[in-house]
Protein backbone atom coordinates (compact mmCIF):
# COMPACT_ATOMS: atom_id res chain seq x y z
CA UNK A 1 0.00 0.00 0.00
CA UNK A 2 1.24 3.46 -0.86
CA UNK A 3 -0.27 6.63 0.61
CA UNK A 4 0.49 10.20 -0.25
CA UNK A 5 -0.40 13.11 2.01
CA UNK A 6 -0.09 16.78 1.26
CA UNK A 7 0.39 19.39 3.99
CA UNK A 8 -0.13 23.03 3.01
CA UNK A 9 -0.40 26.44 4.65
CA UNK A 10 1.33 29.77 5.22
CA UNK A 11 5.09 29.77 5.52
CA UNK A 12 5.72 29.91 9.25
CA UNK A 13 2.77 27.75 10.23
CA UNK A 14 4.98 24.71 10.65
CA UNK A 15 3.64 22.87 7.66
CA UNK A 16 7.00 21.30 6.82
CA UNK A 17 7.38 20.14 10.41
CA UNK A 18 4.11 18.29 10.18
CA UNK A 19 5.26 16.37 7.14
CA UNK A 20 8.67 15.85 8.62
CA UNK A 21 7.20 14.42 11.81
CA UNK A 22 4.92 12.07 9.97
CA UNK A 23 7.74 10.88 7.75
CA UNK A 24 9.91 10.06 10.73
CA UNK A 25 7.19 8.14 12.48
CA UNK A 26 6.48 6.16 9.34
CA UNK A 27 10.15 5.36 8.87
CA UNK A 28 10.39 4.21 12.47
CA UNK A 29 7.40 2.00 11.80
CA UNK A 30 9.37 0.17 9.15
CA UNK A 31 7.82 1.85 6.12
CA UNK A 32 9.41 3.20 2.99
CA UNK A 33 9.06 6.96 3.04
CA UNK A 34 9.76 10.06 1.02
CA UNK A 35 9.30 13.67 2.07
CA UNK A 36 9.19 16.34 -0.62
CA UNK A 37 8.98 19.92 0.60
CA UNK A 38 8.19 22.91 -1.49
CA UNK A 39 11.29 25.07 -1.25
CA UNK A 40 12.28 28.53 -2.11
CA UNK A 41 14.11 30.36 0.60
CA UNK A 42 14.81 32.79 -2.24
CA UNK A 43 11.18 33.83 -1.95
CA UNK A 44 10.06 35.22 1.39
CA UNK A 45 6.47 34.80 2.54
CA UNK A 46 3.88 33.01 0.47
CA UNK A 47 2.73 29.50 1.06
CA UNK A 48 4.56 26.33 1.95
CA UNK A 49 3.65 22.74 1.39
CA UNK A 50 5.07 19.28 1.47
CA UNK A 51 4.20 15.86 0.22
CA UNK A 52 4.76 12.71 2.22
CA UNK A 53 4.74 9.28 0.65
CA UNK A 54 4.44 6.20 2.86
CA UNK A 55 4.62 2.77 1.35
CA UNK A 56 5.23 -0.87 2.10
CA UNK A 57 7.41 -1.23 -0.96
CA UNK A 58 10.07 0.75 -2.72
CA UNK A 59 8.68 4.11 -3.71
CA UNK A 60 8.87 4.76 -7.40
CA UNK A 61 7.53 8.27 -7.59
CA UNK A 62 7.70 10.52 -4.53
CA UNK A 63 5.65 13.05 -6.49
CA UNK A 64 2.00 13.17 -7.39
CA UNK A 65 -0.62 15.48 -8.75
CA UNK A 66 -3.41 13.95 -6.74
CA UNK A 67 -2.58 12.94 -3.20
CA UNK A 68 -4.99 10.68 -1.37
CA UNK A 69 -5.02 13.05 1.61
CA UNK A 70 -4.49 16.71 2.27
CA UNK A 71 -4.04 18.62 5.51
CA UNK A 72 -4.80 22.25 4.86
CA UNK A 73 -3.79 25.09 7.15
CA UNK A 74 -5.11 28.19 5.34
CA UNK A 75 -7.53 29.45 2.74
CA UNK A 76 -5.15 29.96 -0.23
CA UNK A 77 -3.98 26.38 0.16
CA UNK A 78 -7.54 25.09 0.11
CA UNK A 79 -8.17 27.07 -3.07
CA UNK A 80 -5.06 25.71 -4.64
CA UNK A 81 -5.25 22.06 -3.69
CA UNK A 82 -8.87 21.13 -3.14
CA UNK A 83 -9.35 20.22 -6.76
CA UNK A 84 -6.32 17.96 -6.81
CA UNK A 85 -7.13 15.53 -4.03
CA UNK A 86 -7.76 12.01 -5.26
CA UNK A 87 -11.42 11.21 -5.61
CA UNK A 88 -12.82 9.79 -2.39
CA UNK A 89 -9.75 11.05 -0.60
CA UNK A 90 -9.46 12.71 2.78
CA UNK A 91 -9.35 16.45 3.47
CA UNK A 92 -8.40 17.87 6.88
CA UNK A 93 -8.89 21.58 7.45
CA UNK A 94 -7.82 24.19 9.98
CA UNK A 95 -11.08 26.08 9.83
CA UNK A 96 -9.73 28.97 11.90
CA UNK A 97 -7.95 30.19 8.80
CA UNK A 98 -10.25 28.85 6.13
CA UNK A 99 -13.35 30.95 5.82
CA UNK A 100 -15.23 28.79 3.38
CA UNK A 101 -16.56 25.27 3.12
CA UNK A 102 -14.89 22.89 0.70
CA UNK A 103 -16.79 22.40 -2.55
CA UNK A 104 -15.87 18.79 -3.21
CA UNK A 105 -18.55 16.30 -2.21
CA UNK A 106 -16.65 13.09 -2.80
CA UNK A 107 -14.16 13.64 0.00
CA UNK A 108 -14.03 12.67 3.63
CA UNK A 109 -13.76 16.06 5.29
CA UNK A 110 -12.62 16.85 8.82
CA UNK A 111 -12.49 20.37 10.17
CA UNK A 112 -10.94 21.74 13.35
CA UNK A 113 -10.87 25.33 14.58
CA UNK A 114 -7.24 25.19 15.57
CA UNK A 115 -6.93 28.71 16.95
CA UNK A 116 -9.81 28.16 19.31
CA UNK A 117 -8.29 24.99 20.63
CA UNK A 118 -4.94 26.80 20.99
CA UNK A 119 -6.45 29.36 23.31
CA UNK A 120 -6.53 26.75 26.00
CA UNK A 121 -2.87 25.88 25.48
CA UNK A 122 0.25 27.81 26.46
CA UNK A 123 1.93 27.59 23.03
CA UNK A 124 0.38 29.80 20.35
CA UNK A 125 2.62 28.40 17.66
CA UNK A 126 1.80 24.71 17.98
CA UNK A 127 -1.34 24.76 15.86
CA UNK A 128 0.35 22.48 13.39
CA UNK A 129 0.76 19.77 16.03
CA UNK A 130 -2.86 20.03 17.04
CA UNK A 131 -4.05 19.35 13.53
CA UNK A 132 -1.44 16.68 12.98
CA UNK A 133 -2.49 14.81 16.13
CA UNK A 134 -6.12 14.92 15.09
CA UNK A 135 -5.27 13.82 11.57
CA UNK A 136 -3.14 10.87 12.58
CA UNK A 137 -5.60 9.77 15.19
CA UNK A 138 -8.45 9.84 12.73
CA UNK A 139 -6.77 8.25 9.73
CA UNK A 140 -4.40 5.90 11.47
CA UNK A 141 -1.90 6.54 8.72
CA UNK A 142 0.68 5.69 11.31
CA UNK A 143 0.18 4.19 14.72
CA UNK A 144 -0.66 6.99 17.15
CA UNK A 145 1.27 5.36 19.97
CA UNK A 146 4.28 5.01 17.74
CA UNK A 147 3.97 8.73 17.06
CA UNK A 148 3.90 9.55 20.76
CA UNK A 149 6.88 7.29 21.40
CA UNK A 150 8.85 9.09 18.74
CA UNK A 151 8.43 12.59 20.07
CA UNK A 152 11.70 13.13 21.81
CA UNK A 153 13.73 11.37 19.15
CA UNK A 154 12.29 13.46 16.36
CA UNK A 155 12.67 16.72 18.25
CA UNK A 156 16.15 15.71 19.36
CA UNK A 157 18.09 18.81 20.26
CA UNK A 158 15.07 20.97 21.05
CA UNK A 159 14.37 22.09 24.61
CA UNK A 160 12.30 19.91 26.90
CA UNK A 161 9.93 22.84 27.17
CA UNK A 162 9.44 22.86 23.43
CA UNK A 163 8.87 19.14 23.25
CA UNK A 164 6.47 19.20 26.13
CA UNK A 165 4.28 21.93 24.72
CA UNK A 166 4.21 20.36 21.29
CA UNK A 167 3.26 17.05 22.79
CA UNK A 168 0.50 18.75 24.66
CA UNK A 169 -0.83 20.28 21.46
CA UNK A 170 -0.58 16.94 19.70
CA UNK A 171 -2.53 15.26 22.46
CA UNK A 172 -5.16 17.98 22.32
CA UNK A 173 -5.57 17.23 18.64
CA UNK A 174 -5.96 13.52 19.30
CA UNK A 175 -8.48 14.28 21.96
CA UNK A 176 -10.43 16.50 19.62
CA UNK A 177 -10.51 13.91 16.88
CA UNK A 178 -11.71 11.24 19.28
CA UNK A 179 -14.51 13.44 20.51
CA UNK A 180 -15.66 15.28 17.41
CA UNK A 181 -14.69 13.44 14.24
Amino acid at each position, binding site marked *: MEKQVLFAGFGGQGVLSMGNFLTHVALNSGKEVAFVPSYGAEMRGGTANCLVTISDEEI*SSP*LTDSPAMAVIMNRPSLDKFEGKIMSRGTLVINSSLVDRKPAREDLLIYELEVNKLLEGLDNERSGNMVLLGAYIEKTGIVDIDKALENFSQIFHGKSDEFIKSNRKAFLAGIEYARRHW
Partner: protein
Amino acid sequence: MKKVLMKGNEALAQGAIDGGCRSYFGYPITPSSEIAEYMARKLPLLGGVFLQAESELAAINMVYGAAATGARVMTATSGPGMSLKQEGISFLAEAELPCLLVNISRGGPGLGGIQPAQSDYFQATRGGGHGDYHIMVLAPNNVQEMMDFAIEGFALADHYRIPVMIMAEGTLGQMMEPVIQRESVPLLTDKPWATDGCKNRKPNIINTLHLSPDVLEQRNMILSDKYQEIKRSEKKAETFMIEDADYIVVAFGLLSRVAKKAIMELRQQGMKMGLIRPITLWPFPDEVIHQAAPQVKKFISIEISMGQMIEDVRLAVNGMAPVEFMGRIGSVPSPQEITRRLAQMVEGEIK
Protein backbone atom coordinates in the same frame (compact mmCIF):
# COMPACT_ATOMS: atom_id res chain seq x y z
CA MET B 1 23.51 0.02 9.39
CA LYS B 2 20.45 1.93 10.40
CA LYS B 3 18.46 3.90 7.91
CA VAL B 4 18.29 7.59 8.66
CA LEU B 5 16.19 10.25 7.01
CA MET B 6 18.29 12.75 5.14
CA LYS B 7 17.79 15.60 2.77
CA GLY B 8 19.31 14.91 -0.65
CA ASN B 9 21.76 17.77 -0.40
CA GLU B 10 22.92 16.66 3.01
CA ALA B 11 23.24 13.05 1.93
CA LEU B 12 25.38 14.17 -0.97
CA ALA B 13 27.59 16.21 1.33
CA GLN B 14 27.91 13.31 3.77
CA GLY B 15 28.70 11.02 0.87
CA ALA B 16 31.47 13.34 -0.20
CA ILE B 17 32.92 13.25 3.30
CA ASP B 18 32.68 9.46 3.30
CA GLY B 19 34.41 9.57 -0.05
CA GLY B 20 37.41 11.24 1.51
CA CYS B 21 36.56 14.84 0.80
CA ARG B 22 37.85 17.23 3.42
CA SER B 23 37.70 20.48 1.51
CA TYR B 24 34.85 22.49 0.13
CA PHE B 25 34.88 25.82 -1.70
CA GLY B 26 31.58 27.23 -2.82
CA TYR B 27 29.13 30.07 -3.05
CA PRO B 28 25.51 29.73 -1.89
CA ILE B 29 22.65 29.44 -4.32
CA THR B 30 19.20 27.94 -4.01
CA PRO B 31 18.51 25.01 -4.22
CA SER B 32 22.05 23.81 -3.51
CA SER B 33 22.97 25.83 -0.42
CA GLU B 34 22.41 23.06 2.12
CA ILE B 35 25.47 21.31 0.74
CA ALA B 36 27.64 24.25 1.70
CA GLU B 37 25.86 24.62 5.02
CA TYR B 38 26.36 20.95 5.88
CA MET B 39 30.03 21.20 5.01
CA ALA B 40 30.36 24.38 7.06
CA ARG B 41 29.10 22.43 10.07
CA LYS B 42 30.99 19.19 9.55
CA LEU B 43 34.33 19.89 7.94
CA PRO B 44 35.82 22.03 10.73
CA LEU B 45 35.10 19.19 13.15
CA LEU B 46 37.05 16.83 10.91
CA GLY B 47 40.03 19.13 10.54
CA GLY B 48 38.94 19.90 7.01
CA VAL B 49 38.62 23.12 5.07
CA PHE B 50 35.34 24.90 4.44
CA LEU B 51 35.56 28.23 2.70
CA GLN B 52 32.73 30.32 1.38
CA ALA B 53 34.29 31.81 -1.71
CA GLU B 54 33.47 35.33 -2.84
CA SER B 55 31.89 33.96 -6.02
CA GLU B 56 31.49 30.85 -8.10
CA LEU B 57 34.37 32.03 -10.22
CA ALA B 58 36.65 32.21 -7.21
CA ALA B 59 35.27 28.91 -5.91
CA ILE B 60 36.12 26.94 -9.03
CA ASN B 61 39.62 28.39 -9.06
CA MET B 62 40.08 27.52 -5.40
CA VAL B 63 39.03 24.02 -6.36
CA TYR B 64 41.70 24.16 -9.07
CA GLY B 65 44.33 25.05 -6.49
CA ALA B 66 43.17 22.54 -3.92
CA ALA B 67 42.87 19.73 -6.46
CA ALA B 68 46.39 20.52 -7.61
CA THR B 69 47.68 19.70 -4.13
CA GLY B 70 46.20 16.23 -4.53
CA ALA B 71 43.31 16.79 -2.13
CA ARG B 72 39.78 15.52 -2.69
CA VAL B 73 37.85 18.71 -3.13
CA MET B 74 34.39 19.71 -4.24
CA THR B 75 32.07 22.59 -5.00
CA ALA B 76 28.31 22.75 -5.47
CA THR B 77 26.06 25.26 -7.14
CA SER B 78 23.08 25.64 -9.44
CA GLY B 79 22.54 26.90 -13.02
CA PRO B 80 23.78 30.52 -13.05
CA GLY B 81 26.65 29.61 -10.76
CA MET B 82 27.62 26.72 -12.98
CA SER B 83 27.75 29.08 -15.95
CA LEU B 84 30.25 31.22 -14.09
CA LYS B 85 32.43 28.18 -13.52
CA GLN B 86 32.73 27.25 -17.19
CA GLU B 87 36.12 28.79 -17.79
CA GLY B 88 37.44 27.10 -14.67
CA ILE B 89 35.98 23.73 -15.63
CA SER B 90 37.66 23.94 -19.01
CA PHE B 91 40.93 24.59 -17.17
CA LEU B 92 40.35 21.72 -14.74
CA ALA B 93 39.60 19.35 -17.60
CA GLU B 94 42.73 20.33 -19.50
CA ALA B 95 44.93 20.18 -16.43
CA GLU B 96 43.33 16.80 -15.63
CA LEU B 97 42.61 17.75 -12.07
CA PRO B 98 40.16 15.47 -10.28
CA CYS B 99 37.33 17.09 -8.35
CA LEU B 100 33.64 16.82 -7.70
CA LEU B 101 31.24 19.40 -9.12
CA VAL B 102 27.60 19.43 -8.15
CA ASN B 103 24.71 21.06 -9.99
CA ILE B 104 21.46 20.98 -8.04
CA SER B 105 19.53 22.20 -11.00
CA ARG B 106 16.94 24.91 -11.27
CA GLY B 107 15.07 26.40 -14.20
CA GLY B 108 16.65 28.79 -16.67
CA PRO B 109 17.75 30.57 -18.72
CA GLY B 110 18.76 33.80 -17.00
CA LEU B 111 17.82 33.98 -13.38
CA GLY B 112 14.92 31.70 -14.26
CA GLY B 113 13.27 30.04 -11.29
CA ILE B 114 14.38 27.87 -8.42
CA GLN B 115 12.19 24.91 -9.16
CA PRO B 116 13.76 21.68 -10.45
CA ALA B 117 14.97 21.43 -14.02
CA GLN B 118 17.17 19.38 -16.33
CA SER B 119 17.91 22.16 -18.76
CA ASP B 120 21.63 22.30 -17.94
CA TYR B 121 22.07 18.94 -19.69
CA PHE B 122 23.86 20.41 -22.69
CA GLN B 123 26.09 22.51 -20.51
CA ALA B 124 27.05 19.47 -18.47
CA THR B 125 27.51 16.96 -21.26
CA ARG B 126 28.81 19.11 -24.11
CA GLY B 127 31.12 21.26 -22.01
CA GLY B 128 29.78 24.77 -21.63
CA GLY B 129 33.32 26.03 -21.53
CA HIS B 130 35.59 26.52 -24.50
CA GLY B 131 37.56 23.81 -26.26
CA ASP B 132 37.29 20.08 -26.63
CA TYR B 133 36.80 18.48 -23.28
CA HIS B 134 34.40 16.37 -21.32
CA ILE B 135 33.64 15.81 -17.72
CA MET B 136 31.84 12.79 -16.33
CA VAL B 137 28.24 13.46 -15.36
CA LEU B 138 26.29 11.26 -12.95
CA ALA B 139 22.57 11.62 -12.41
CA PRO B 140 21.25 10.08 -9.18
CA ASN B 141 17.54 9.46 -8.82
CA ASN B 142 17.12 9.07 -5.08
CA VAL B 143 18.69 10.30 -1.88
CA GLN B 144 20.68 7.13 -1.38
CA GLU B 145 22.30 7.66 -4.75
CA MET B 146 23.01 11.27 -3.90
CA MET B 147 25.20 9.84 -1.17
CA ASP B 148 26.62 6.90 -3.09
CA PHE B 149 27.43 8.80 -6.25
CA ALA B 150 29.40 11.34 -4.27
CA ILE B 151 31.62 8.56 -2.98
CA GLU B 152 31.87 6.99 -6.41
CA GLY B 153 32.38 10.36 -8.01
CA PHE B 154 35.61 10.92 -6.15
CA ALA B 155 36.87 7.47 -7.03
CA LEU B 156 36.17 8.07 -10.71
CA ALA B 157 37.65 11.56 -10.58
CA ASP B 158 40.91 10.29 -9.12
CA HIS B 159 41.06 7.24 -11.34
CA TYR B 160 40.67 9.15 -14.58
CA ARG B 161 42.03 12.49 -13.39
CA ILE B 162 38.84 14.16 -14.52
CA PRO B 163 36.25 16.48 -12.99
CA VAL B 164 33.10 14.55 -12.18
CA MET B 165 29.75 16.25 -11.95
CA ILE B 166 26.69 15.15 -10.09
CA MET B 167 23.62 16.70 -11.64
CA ALA B 168 20.33 16.41 -9.78
CA GLU B 169 17.04 18.22 -9.99
CA GLY B 170 16.47 20.75 -7.21
CA THR B 171 13.77 18.55 -5.69
CA LEU B 172 16.20 15.72 -5.23
CA GLY B 173 18.44 18.03 -3.23
CA GLN B 174 15.57 19.22 -1.08
CA MET B 175 13.60 16.03 -0.42
CA MET B 176 14.21 13.56 2.36
CA GLU B 177 14.45 9.82 2.09
CA PRO B 178 16.01 7.15 4.27
CA VAL B 179 19.64 6.39 3.54
CA ILE B 180 22.15 3.84 4.71
CA GLN B 181 25.57 5.29 5.21
CA ARG B 182 28.42 3.40 3.53
CA GLU B 183 31.83 2.88 4.99
CA SER B 184 34.23 5.73 4.52
CA VAL B 185 37.07 5.28 2.09
CA PRO B 186 40.68 5.84 3.07
CA LEU B 187 41.65 9.49 2.85
CA LEU B 188 44.87 9.47 0.92
CA THR B 189 45.65 8.49 -2.59
CA ASP B 190 49.03 8.75 -4.21
CA LYS B 191 49.25 11.62 -6.69
CA PRO B 192 52.81 12.01 -7.91
CA TRP B 193 51.77 14.88 -10.17
CA ALA B 194 50.52 17.06 -7.30
CA THR B 195 52.07 20.47 -6.70
CA ASP B 196 52.69 20.18 -3.01
CA GLY B 197 56.31 21.21 -2.81
CA CYS B 198 59.19 19.62 -4.71
CA LYS B 199 61.08 18.12 -1.82
CA ASN B 200 63.04 15.08 -3.04
CA ARG B 201 61.75 15.30 -6.56
CA LYS B 202 61.76 17.52 -9.62
CA PRO B 203 59.29 20.40 -9.63
CA ASN B 204 55.80 19.58 -10.84
CA ILE B 205 53.99 21.92 -13.20
CA ILE B 206 50.26 22.20 -13.67
CA ASN B 207 49.53 24.09 -16.81
CA THR B 208 46.99 24.39 -19.60
CA LEU B 209 48.93 26.60 -22.02
CA HIS B 210 50.33 24.97 -25.12
CA LEU B 211 51.43 27.60 -27.59
CA SER B 212 52.85 25.13 -30.04
CA PRO B 213 50.07 23.74 -32.24
CA ASP B 214 51.69 20.34 -32.20
CA VAL B 215 51.82 20.14 -28.46
CA LEU B 216 48.27 21.40 -28.23
CA GLU B 217 47.17 18.71 -30.62
CA GLN B 218 49.02 16.06 -28.65
CA ARG B 219 47.36 17.20 -25.45
CA ASN B 220 43.98 17.02 -27.10
CA MET B 221 44.77 13.54 -28.33
CA ILE B 222 45.70 12.42 -24.85
CA LEU B 223 42.47 13.81 -23.51
CA SER B 224 40.55 12.25 -26.35
CA ASP B 225 42.07 8.83 -25.67
CA LYS B 226 41.03 9.15 -22.07
CA TYR B 227 37.52 10.07 -23.08
CA GLN B 228 37.37 7.05 -25.37
CA GLU B 229 38.48 4.82 -22.54
CA ILE B 230 35.81 6.27 -20.27
CA LYS B 231 33.24 5.73 -22.98
CA ARG B 232 34.28 2.10 -23.23
CA SER B 233 34.26 1.46 -19.50
CA GLU B 234 31.91 3.75 -17.67
CA LYS B 235 28.58 4.03 -19.46
CA LYS B 236 25.83 3.18 -17.05
CA ALA B 237 22.10 2.84 -17.39
CA GLU B 238 19.22 1.15 -15.63
CA THR B 239 16.54 -0.58 -17.68
CA PHE B 240 13.01 -1.48 -16.72
CA MET B 241 10.85 -3.86 -18.74
CA ILE B 242 12.49 -3.10 -22.06
CA GLU B 243 12.76 -6.69 -23.23
CA ASP B 244 9.35 -6.82 -24.85
CA ALA B 245 8.64 -3.10 -24.98
CA ASP B 246 7.05 -1.49 -28.01
CA TYR B 247 7.68 1.92 -26.56
CA ILE B 248 10.72 2.91 -24.60
CA VAL B 249 10.86 5.97 -22.45
CA VAL B 250 14.26 7.50 -21.79
CA ALA B 251 14.45 9.63 -18.66
CA PHE B 252 17.05 10.39 -16.02
CA GLY B 253 17.23 11.67 -12.48
CA LEU B 254 14.25 11.99 -10.19
CA LEU B 255 12.11 12.21 -13.28
CA SER B 256 13.04 8.64 -14.16
CA ARG B 257 11.24 7.45 -11.04
CA VAL B 258 8.15 9.37 -11.96
CA ALA B 259 8.34 7.94 -15.45
CA LYS B 260 8.69 4.47 -14.00
CA LYS B 261 5.48 4.86 -12.07
CA ALA B 262 3.70 6.00 -15.21
CA ILE B 263 5.07 3.01 -17.10
CA MET B 264 3.89 0.62 -14.41
CA GLU B 265 0.46 2.16 -14.70
CA LEU B 266 0.43 1.90 -18.49
CA ARG B 267 1.63 -1.70 -18.37
CA GLN B 268 -1.39 -2.43 -16.25
CA GLN B 269 -3.47 -0.85 -18.97
CA GLY B 270 -1.86 -3.30 -21.36
CA MET B 271 0.62 -1.07 -23.11
CA LYS B 272 4.05 -2.52 -23.57
CA MET B 273 6.21 0.24 -22.27
CA GLY B 274 9.73 0.16 -20.94
CA LEU B 275 12.22 2.56 -19.44
CA ILE B 276 15.87 3.27 -20.03
CA ARG B 277 17.36 5.47 -17.37
CA PRO B 278 20.79 6.89 -18.15
CA ILE B 279 22.80 6.98 -14.93
CA THR B 280 25.86 8.44 -16.56
CA LEU B 281 24.84 11.36 -18.75
CA TRP B 282 28.37 11.55 -20.03
CA PRO B 283 29.41 9.09 -21.20
CA PHE B 284 25.89 8.60 -22.50
CA PRO B 285 24.76 4.96 -22.44
CA ASP B 286 24.02 4.84 -26.13
CA GLU B 287 24.58 1.14 -26.69
CA VAL B 288 21.67 -0.08 -24.65
CA ILE B 289 19.44 2.27 -26.62
CA HIS B 290 21.01 1.32 -29.92
CA GLN B 291 20.54 -2.36 -29.24
CA ALA B 292 16.93 -1.96 -28.28
CA ALA B 293 16.09 0.22 -31.27
CA PRO B 294 15.34 -2.39 -33.94
CA GLN B 295 12.51 -3.92 -31.86
CA VAL B 296 10.98 -0.65 -30.74
CA LYS B 297 8.11 1.29 -32.29
CA LYS B 298 9.03 4.54 -30.71
CA PHE B 299 11.37 6.13 -28.21
CA ILE B 300 10.14 8.93 -26.04
CA SER B 301 12.62 11.17 -24.35
CA ILE B 302 11.09 12.77 -21.29
CA GLU B 303 12.93 15.73 -19.84
CA ILE B 304 12.41 18.75 -17.65
CA SER B 305 13.64 20.95 -20.46
CA MET B 306 12.72 21.88 -24.00
CA GLY B 307 14.59 18.83 -25.27
CA GLN B 308 18.30 18.31 -24.83
CA MET B 309 19.04 14.66 -24.03
CA ILE B 310 16.81 13.78 -26.99
CA GLU B 311 19.77 14.57 -29.24
CA ASP B 312 21.76 11.84 -27.54
CA VAL B 313 18.84 9.46 -27.85
CA ARG B 314 18.54 10.27 -31.56
CA LEU B 315 22.27 9.80 -32.04
CA ALA B 316 22.02 6.42 -30.34
CA VAL B 317 18.94 5.31 -32.27
CA ASN B 318 20.48 6.57 -35.51
CA GLY B 319 17.28 6.53 -37.50
CA MET B 320 16.17 3.00 -36.57
CA ALA B 321 13.01 4.20 -34.85
CA PRO B 322 11.18 7.45 -34.33
CA VAL B 323 12.22 9.46 -31.30
CA GLU B 324 9.69 11.80 -29.77
CA PHE B 325 9.81 14.30 -27.03
CA MET B 326 7.81 15.13 -23.98
CA GLY B 327 8.99 18.02 -21.90
CA ARG B 328 8.06 20.25 -19.06
CA ILE B 329 9.79 23.31 -17.74
CA GLY B 330 9.58 24.74 -14.28
CA SER B 331 8.59 21.63 -12.38
CA VAL B 332 8.79 17.87 -12.34
CA PRO B 333 5.71 16.52 -14.11
CA SER B 334 3.56 14.20 -12.02
CA PRO B 335 3.13 10.49 -12.76
CA GLN B 336 -0.46 11.20 -13.69
CA GLU B 337 0.56 13.77 -16.26
CA ILE B 338 3.18 11.50 -17.75
CA THR B 339 0.76 8.62 -17.89
CA ARG B 340 -1.77 10.77 -19.70
CA ARG B 341 0.70 12.20 -22.18
CA LEU B 342 2.34 8.87 -22.91
CA ALA B 343 -1.02 7.27 -23.49
CA GLN B 344 -1.85 10.04 -25.96
CA MET B 345 1.43 9.68 -27.76
CA VAL B 346 1.03 5.95 -28.06
CA GLU B 347 -2.58 6.16 -29.13
CA GLY B 348 -1.67 8.68 -31.76
CA GLU B 349 0.58 5.93 -32.99
CA ILE B 350 -2.05 3.23 -32.93
CA LYS B 351 -4.84 4.92 -34.80
